């Protein structure tokens, strides 16, 4: 089972828009609250009310400042979770078959009955997507809400990953990246969706839409960066003269 499938029927995954994410952590805690009672329950927390509090989370949001080679700086919020890679090394290194990639939809899962807690899969993941549950002794990770997306006990429109369902700015999109006609595939094409650390060669399913080019104030206003005054006399009289002319025209 630990061998990766040659190909999967679907490639379900996320497309995350870095130009829209405000770093509000909604996807982070919604993921936590769903999944701590979900397929990989519980997402244990250590020292929840003390020093060195720690816990198992499937989704984390970083904040950065990014500077272009031209020297312009901007802030960037970056959600980080499992990318459900096509060539998922975390699966290949698993000695027990606990980590596997589903042939039907490409979701990478951990079978916690088989996991021995050797942690090697977490070493193999460049993205830090796997978090070990010290109390349960098994590795845990994003399930792409496998217990939501097909769940017949949920309303149809709720059958999406919790992080997508809750995202207030609509920065998270979910769908089949195998289907070139899907909304997510179109979005990736339109906005130049990117792989993270493509040099690793893991072919992540999830894509990130880069921040759009920053525009300076008024760069869209023709050539003139400033407004032309009404006339040279400027001041109140120039304005009021114009006002009078305008009012006459309105009458």
């Amino acid at each position, binding site marked *: 089972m630990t061998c990766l499938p040659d190909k999967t029927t679907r490639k379900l995954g996320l497309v995350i828009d870095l130009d829209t994410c405000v770093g509000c952590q909604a996807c982070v805690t919604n993921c936590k609250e769903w999944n701590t009672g979900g397929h990989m329950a*519980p997402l244990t927390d250590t020292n929840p009310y003390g020093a060195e509090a720690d816990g198992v989370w499937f989704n984390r949001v970083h904040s950065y400042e990014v500077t272009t080679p031209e020297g312009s700086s901007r802030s960037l919020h970056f959600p980080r979770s499992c990318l459900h890679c096509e060539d998922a090394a975390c699966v290949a290194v698993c000695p027990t078959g606990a980590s596997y990639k589903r042939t039907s939809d490409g979701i990478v899962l951990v079978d916690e009955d088989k996991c021995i807690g050797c942690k090697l899969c977490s070493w193999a993941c460049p993205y830090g997507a796997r978090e070990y549950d010290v109390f349960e002794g098994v590795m845990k990770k994003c399930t792409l809400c496998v217990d939501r997306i097909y769940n017949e006990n949920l309303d149809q429109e709720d059958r999406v990953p919790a992080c997508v369902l809750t995202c207030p700015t609509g920065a998270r999109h979910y769908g089949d990246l195998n289907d070139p006609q899907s909304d997510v595939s179109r979005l990736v094409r339109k906005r130049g969706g990117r792989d993270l650390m493509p040099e690793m060669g893991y072919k992540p399913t999830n894509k990130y839409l880069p921040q759009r080019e920053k525009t300076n104030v008024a760069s869209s206003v023709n050539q003139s960066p400033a407004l032309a005054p009404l006339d040279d006399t400027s001041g109140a009289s120039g304005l009021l003269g114009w006002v009078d002319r305008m009012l006459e025209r309105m009458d």
Partner: protein
Amino acid sequence: MHFGAPKENDGVDTSPPVADEVKTTTCYMCACRCGIRVFLKDGQIRYIQGNRDHPVNKGVLCGKGAAGIMNHLSPARLRKPLKRVGPRGSGEFEEIEWEEALTTATTWLGDIRRTDPKKLAFFTGRDQSQSLTGWWAKQFGTPNFAAHGGFCSVNMAAGGLYSIGGSFWEFGEPDWDHARLFLMFGVAEDHDSNPIKIGLGKLKERGAKVIAINPARTGYAAIADDWIGIRPGTDGLLVLALVHELLRAGKIDLEYLLNYTNAGWLVRQTAGDEQDGLFIRGSEGTPLVWDRNRGHAAPHTDAGVHASLSGTHQVDGVSAVPVFQLIADRYTDEAYAPDAAAERCGLSAETIKRLAAEIADAAFNNPLSLPISWTDSKGTRHETMTGRPVAMHAMRGISAHSNGFQTCRALHLLQMLIGAVDTPGSFRYKPPFPKPVPPGPTPAGKGYAPDTPLSGMPLGFPNGPEDLLLEDDGTPIRIDKAFTWENPMSAHGAMHRVIANAAAGDPYPIDTLFLYMANMAWNSSMDIQGTLDALTATDPDTGDYRIPHIIYSDAYVSETIPYADLILPDTTYLERWDCISLLDRPISDAEGAGDAIRQPIVEPDRDVRPFQTVLLDLGARLGLSGFVNEDNSPKFPGGYADYIVNHERAPGVGPLAGWRGEDGQSQGNGSINPDQLERYIENGCFYHGEIPKEARYYKMANQAYLDWAVGMGFLGSADHIVMQLYSEPVQKFRNGARGHGVNQPPDHLRDRVEQACDPLPSWYPTLEDEATDPEAYPLHALTQRPMHHYHSWGSQNAWLRQITSQNRLFVHHETAAMFGVADDDWVWVESRHGRVKGQVKLVDGVNKNTVWTWNAIGKRRGSWGLDKGAPESNQAFLLNHIIPEKLDDGALSNSDPITGQAAWFDLRVRITKAEPDEQGLTEPMFNEVRDPTGDAPRPGKLDYGRSFKTRELAE
């Protein structure tokens, strides 16, 4: 995007049962009040999801809302009423029964009411039931009531209500669907947070341009197309420079100004007399304009009048000019030019000019026209709705300065000049706004007497010096000195001044301080040590506390708990009835009026009671009118739910607007419907009354809207609401300062009132800037709200605190270099008031003259259910420690001189690197308070959700 479950045969249950039951209610993890669906399984909360049908959040939920389970289960929850047994501040309490608690409170309060009701100071914090708490205070008869608006938002509320009859914050919203340019001024992330995020998503999707004007490039500013890192407290100057540019270029909407503002109203130019600067009024009291065609003055309401916008006109021998003439004279002056403003704002003049050009371009080169026909209040039919797709939004970054009122007015001036208030693509009112300008009613409090209700609600909107709450000898009626010459238009009271004033007996001593949900002993006060000293101050002769009784209600062990004498433990938000009322702060949007309820999702497992039910009980025990029947039996024996349904503020008007009338068919007005709560629950615990389609813009003058609003009870009459570029009530206070009228400021305040009370939006340096030596304290310091924490509540939440349990001081690289500070260094942040120690993080995205940090992460040891080693109590720090409560003269509050809004963001500091042996621990470090809920060790592990697991483990 939905797929059927594939056959994977990996043993994964893709359709586990999720809930036994799903109940709707309203979130209370911040002030946003989103609709939520709570999934219950085996009597426990499995999952909280946004309610897709809800007008506020449309299905989404923020980081706080999704962590609600952990607030509900917080170890800091109070469990039983408490009576203080040790000294104040020790945290030594004894558990008592509710009967004893209520009897004690009734005894204290009853004595006060019989003798001198103003000796009760009743102030509430993050209260979402102000229409009840305010009414309770009124019926009790104390003028000393306010919620926390005085230290939060009053500059913005008053600035808006006195200008456009509505306001930013959550009372209005950008037209997310049509705006092409969106300007955010100092927008924080704790009010209207999901609507703003949803809206930003829409703007991004449409490719609209977003510009953030904020000293710090946090959250929303991070995704802006442009960030203008302005120097704190100078937004007003920037805005007036934009006004200067737009006026000089003629980029203003004259038709809009004529039709919807007081641009043409005539202002008396009679320097030296007491009417100077007031409007010329006709026989009916209607302000007059100069009819430029007919050459005489006429009421602005006359049909067919063609108001002049310029010139000096003689009306009955009185010299007068139109408001617009004053505006032209004022703002075209070079003093308002970008070149004059740039340096102070910390921006280049080019940036200001380009911003003005951008606004003009969006407003006038690409006007928006929606194919909606409508009739204005003069009866004119329009086939389309024309808009200026420039939307603006502003929040605390504007509000929390001592020039915030005028800055906010300046922003509204800018909006009005370009025709961008409630037009397509611009700012939109949310019902019940717009309200007539100036707003009403006036504050009540004069004539308070034993055993007598006040004549009206204690908070209100003064229209001039005659409405100030002053005794005959000029001393303040209110303990917080609201509605005095120190802050004449303090429409939300001044909660931040109560404790210090009460302890000082200034203007008079009180007997009982009654607080609800306000962490005044920590992050809700400036000068925390001073506040603690006041709470524990004793009379040297008697040894009694200067504030003899303190009653406090809260659900959690905040830092304030140890300072109260009697604790009334409240429930969590999932254990209670509540109403989010249109009488208070509604959840409307621009397309409809909204209110909502909370219903109990689970029963409390502790001996706690909802505060509102307790307040109704106390009202009945005190025999307050409205709280008892004629036979003196409690009027609302069913508690708050009973009140929500059966209370009528006016005939047909109650806390909830939906499903009124015996048949449940009325909206806004209607008789009591005993099944009202059931109807709400059926509808997802909210009501949304849609505004007719043709009435959703130009609400101030859209006849269909005005009629609808009258029908809903929002407006007394369907008269056109004229927005005020020039504010007459403000001028009345100025005239008082100039020596006119019966009611005049004391001499030491004359100049201050004269300067601040400018009827046209003005800018002046913040009072702290004026009081501080810029060489000694070269930096501004302020806080921002992390989107995942709401005030002090986040740290008790096992999930949210993992995200942030220590705040850093964010300093610009270049600034740090100047101070010899490196990344991760510990530094002292020092103001004229004191110093606090914290750890630095260097950034680019901040104004170079400014340092900032996250608000309210620092906690006192022993509070909020945290271990004493928690980073919140050891590494995190509060800026509050160094914010002076007084201006440097030691008498006046560090607040806006007009509204009394606490000037949190005026703080000036310097930073110095801490010594090597000073690293790692914050200071000041207060002693640990004893946790009144017991000293049980906190769990080392939390595995919430284990019981929901549907799959049995193999071994």
